[in-house]
């Protein structure tokens, strides 16, 4: 009911190619996250799927039917915008009812769906308020409610959580994930936050400069990043990337090792360094360690109780099985 296929889709604004020829298959019921830095074309890609932008070339197929030239309203997709795009002069009830009113649904059915959506999203008490009287999280839920009542083939989310404060964001993240398990509808979600991508996605699409860098499940991307870009982008804190002697002796141009795959010890280990800034999170401590002959500090995760301080000498032991090796072209070596 909600399989979306992109075939050689491109988009250019004037002379600028925003999306380079791109193929992607989104299966029915999947939660797909587009993630990438600002300006990588992830929002444009979503808008192409929604039909808010025309493709420059290529085909968009929704449920087996060519939807490239179908107007947005007829594609059976619902979108949640970054600014929520609620209609400020309408009450919450009317906001949620609007797509059904446009579709000409009868009143009883409209009310049934509104009540159901409001109950699911904890909005029942706010139905007669206007968006201006709601908090950010409530507005977000109204926007989702407006999308749900259309019973769309797929939901499109355009950075829906970026206007919320950190605590609310974690809560809404869970709510959207729960919604997905309950509705089992395809969801396409755009974010620049790789934590959101890792926690919510069935499938992550990493984009950079209008190209797909890698497609895969969160753990695939974490375990086997296809290239340097994905290696640096997925994971928090970022993977340490080392060039020079350490890479050469492992037969690579660049090697990557995640902070959590380096053991820190006060007395033994192959790499010796000086502790710089240390970030204590309680459960973990992240040390930024300076190693002689390297400009970039290496980030190391240690247990929260390890007591090493600024200026102390530290010895690091990388887990050899979890070192990622990259060739001169930035691609992963087998």
């Amino acid at each position, binding site marked *: 009911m909600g399989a979306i296929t992109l075939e050689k889709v491109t988009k250019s604004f004037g002379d600028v190619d925003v999306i380079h020829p791109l193929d992607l298959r989104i299966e029915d019921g999947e939660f797909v996250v587009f993630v990438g830095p600002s300006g990588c074309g992830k929002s444009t890609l979503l808008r192409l799927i*929604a*039909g*808010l932008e025309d493709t420059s070339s290529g085909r968009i197929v929704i449920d087996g039917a060519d939807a490239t030239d179908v*107007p*947005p*309203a007829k594609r059976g*997709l*619902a*979108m949640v*915008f*970054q*600014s929520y*795009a*609620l*209609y*400020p*002069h309408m009450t919450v009830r009317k906001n949620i009812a*609007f*797509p059904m009113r*446009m*579709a000409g649904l009868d009143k009883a059915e409209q009310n049934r769906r509104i009540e159901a959506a409001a109950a699911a999203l904890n909005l029942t008490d706010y139905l007669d308020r206007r968006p*201006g009287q709601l908090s950010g999280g409530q507005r977000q839920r109204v926007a989702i409610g*407006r999308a749900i009542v*259309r019973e769309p083939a797929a939901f499109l989310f355009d950075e829906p959580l970026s206007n919320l404060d950190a605590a609310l964001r974690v809560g809404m993240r869970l709510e959207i994930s729960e919604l997905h398990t309950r509705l089992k509808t395809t969801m396409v979600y755009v974010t620049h936050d790789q934590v959101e991508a890792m926690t919510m996605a069935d499938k992550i699409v990493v984009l950079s400069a209008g190209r797909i860098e890698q497609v895969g499940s969160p753990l695939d991307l974490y375990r086997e990043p296809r290239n340097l870009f994905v290696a640096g982008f997925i994971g928090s804190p970022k993977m340490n990337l080392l060039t020079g002697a350490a890479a050469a002796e492992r037969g690579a141009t660049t090697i990557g090792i995640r902070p959590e795959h380096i053991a820190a010890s006060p007395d033994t280990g192959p790499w010796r360094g000086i502790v710089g800034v240390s970030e204590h999170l309680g459960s973990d401590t992240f040390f930024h360690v300076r190693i002689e002959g390297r400009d970039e500090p290496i980030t190391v995760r240690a247990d929260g109780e390890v007591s090493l301080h600024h200026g102390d000498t530290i010895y690091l032991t990388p887990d050899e099985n979890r070192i990622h090796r990259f060739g001169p072209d930035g691609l992963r070596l087998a």
Partner: protein
Amino acid sequence: MATKASRTAARAMMSPSVILLLGWMLIPLALTLYFSFLRYNLLMPGGNPFVGLENYEYFFTDPAFQTAVVNTLLLVGGVLVVTVVGGILLALLLDQAMWGQGIVRILVIAPFFVMPTVSALVWKNMFMNPVNGLFAYLAQSVGLEPFDFLAHAPLASIIGIVSWQWLPFATLILLTALQSLDSEQLEAAEMDGAGPFARFRFMVLPHMARAITVVILIETIFLLSIFAEILVTTNGGPGNASTNLTYLIYAQSLLQFDVGLGSAGGVFAIILANIVAIFLMRMIGRNLDA
């Protein structure tokens, strides 16, 4: 204004202008009220005896009075309809990206900078004149009888002229309102299945409601006292077909030199303006609440 000292200073600083403005308003108002109760005709010098409501009686029973009130309201209403509807359409047009947008926008504003007497004269002599006017020429070129606008449709012609002057104002305010509409809202409506007309009806129009209210209120203030256009084109005629309240007061106090009667008319004009204001605020004032 946090401290007592700064509040006192602020009041002291503001008081000259407040006193000046109050005097500016209250003294003429008080004098008008005072004159309206006197028999005060410039052609009959001598005592100006107190005559109570005699001036009001004469003013209200004047055969031109009812026509003038109706004409005033028709003029205000007509111009409002033309400028608001036309302003919305023009604003929608100007909001589209097009070549030469900057120049077109300046051209659209231009009529507002032409002074009323000049624009009325231009309309009267260059467009509406049945012999030399452009409209007469156009009518003749397709074989029609030229229409003498100011003789046969004086009020409608004046509504046309005044609308032409006020259309830019409405367009400009409505255009800025249109430009402040969040494009994501329109896109959301599009995704929700709203076609162009539904988007206009449910998104654009409610969004512009406040700006439309402002246009209506400001224009009403100025349109109630339209005078120059009437003086220059029709002199209130033929008969009193295009006489509004302002022109009637002018005719009585300055053409008949009856200051008392004119003042009574002025007081009535103030009352009429307030009645209109109350009705307007009742009807559309809630749009101004955030």
